[in-house]
């Protein structure tokens, strides 16, 4: 399984919460909206999914969506 996050930049308000919760997975860009960053291999996919889900649930604008695929 492989989990990826996406930030809807029309919803994001640049609160920086996602970046604070995990700066490996999210970063604020220069225009102040967040970007999801792909993680390289070598991570426990279950733990990663859980972490992404926590962050998406804490985001105040519902801007983060997570998709899972079966590859890898």
């Amino acid at each position, binding site marked *: 399984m492989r989990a990826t996050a996406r930030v809807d930049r029309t919803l994001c*308000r*640049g*609160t*920086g919460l996602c970046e*604070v919760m995990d700066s490996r997975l999210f970063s604020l860009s220069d225009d*102040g909206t967040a970007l999801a960053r792909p993680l390289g291999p070598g991570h426990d996919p279950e733990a990663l999914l859980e972490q992404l889900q926590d962050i998406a*649930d*804490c985001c*105040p*604008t519902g801007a983060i969506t997570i998709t899972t695929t079966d590859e890898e």
Partner: protein
Amino acid sequence: MDLSAPAVPPIALFSPEYYQNPHPTLTWLQENSPVHEFTFPVGDVRTWMVTRFDDVKTVLADPRCSTESITWGNDEFRAAGLVIAEGTILERGITVVDPPAHTRLRRLAMSAFTTRRVEQWRQTVHDVVDRTLEDCARRKNFDVMDDYAGEVSAGVLGVILGFRIERHRELVTALNEAFPSDPALIDRAPAAFGRICEYAAELVAEKRHDPSDDLTSALIQTSDEGERLSADELTGLVAAMIMGGSDTVRGFIGNAALALLDHPDQSKLLLENPELADGAVEELLRYEGALSTALFRITTEEIDLAGTRLPAGAPIIAALLAANRDPRRFDDPERLDITRSGPRHVGFGHGLHNCIGAALARLEGTIAIPALFQRFPQLSLAMPRDELRYIDNWAIRRLTALPVARSGMSGA
């Protein structure tokens, strides 16, 4: 160690004069002492204050600057009684805990603020605003703080949390006592906080028994399906929303009304272009939001902050009001311009603890602020401008009263 005289602003922080107009002091600090060490007046605690936009954001985004003062606060800080809500149900509340406890509470709280639910509150806000304006219209003069902003903020919260209507009046009274305008009444605040926690506990018990389509019932249901919060945790969350979502909205509507009364060109612009409401609310939050500062942050280890070394356990105050008027960040920051676009403000905080009620606060602002001027296009101050007073509070920026006449000089 630097033995030169410490930098001290001309008007001392947290002095009576400062509360009436903090801006000159904050500007002075940005220029002369951006990471300002001073003695916090309660308990003489050694404290640091940051005022520049970038530094405020850095502090709020740094996991080594924690709100969990019950864990990280030094002896001096604790002895001064500065640990928020120590000994109450809120001492481990959402605002003052680190992850993973924070994540658990925040996930649940946020789940109740879905776009669908906030949208559903639009009609509620309109109803409460219209009803309150009708009451105001029966009088020649009224007080925007008590008769309008206070009624709207408490009224909306009462409905969306699901309080029985008989409770609404008691809630307004308790909130007035918890956040008094008159410093002489501060003794009553702890009892009022206690009462609010009791109302919250009662509400949680009631909704567990008899759920309905309200925020409290939604919190209970989601909790049961997943995180399984204890009754105390749920009560703490409801109480945090009452405390976090009433006086702030009230203060903000008051500050916004005054800013628009001070800038008739801007209120005219808003009246003629209702579609500007969203941008106007952002600009009004930037210009004079409801919170002067974030909650205390405490360093969990020694840190370097914009060139200054802070020891572990150092209390830091992030001045949101100053950051939002930092000329390094905003062009012509002293100007109110409801058409302003550009950088975001930090009126709702930043990072882990950013406001969970922001969508609701924005909804209330975009409805309640224009509606006041639409209903009373001749609205004017009913008190000399220089006699208006702000409460003596270092974190909350709110007028004690904002008396207005609803129909200019005509005396109708």
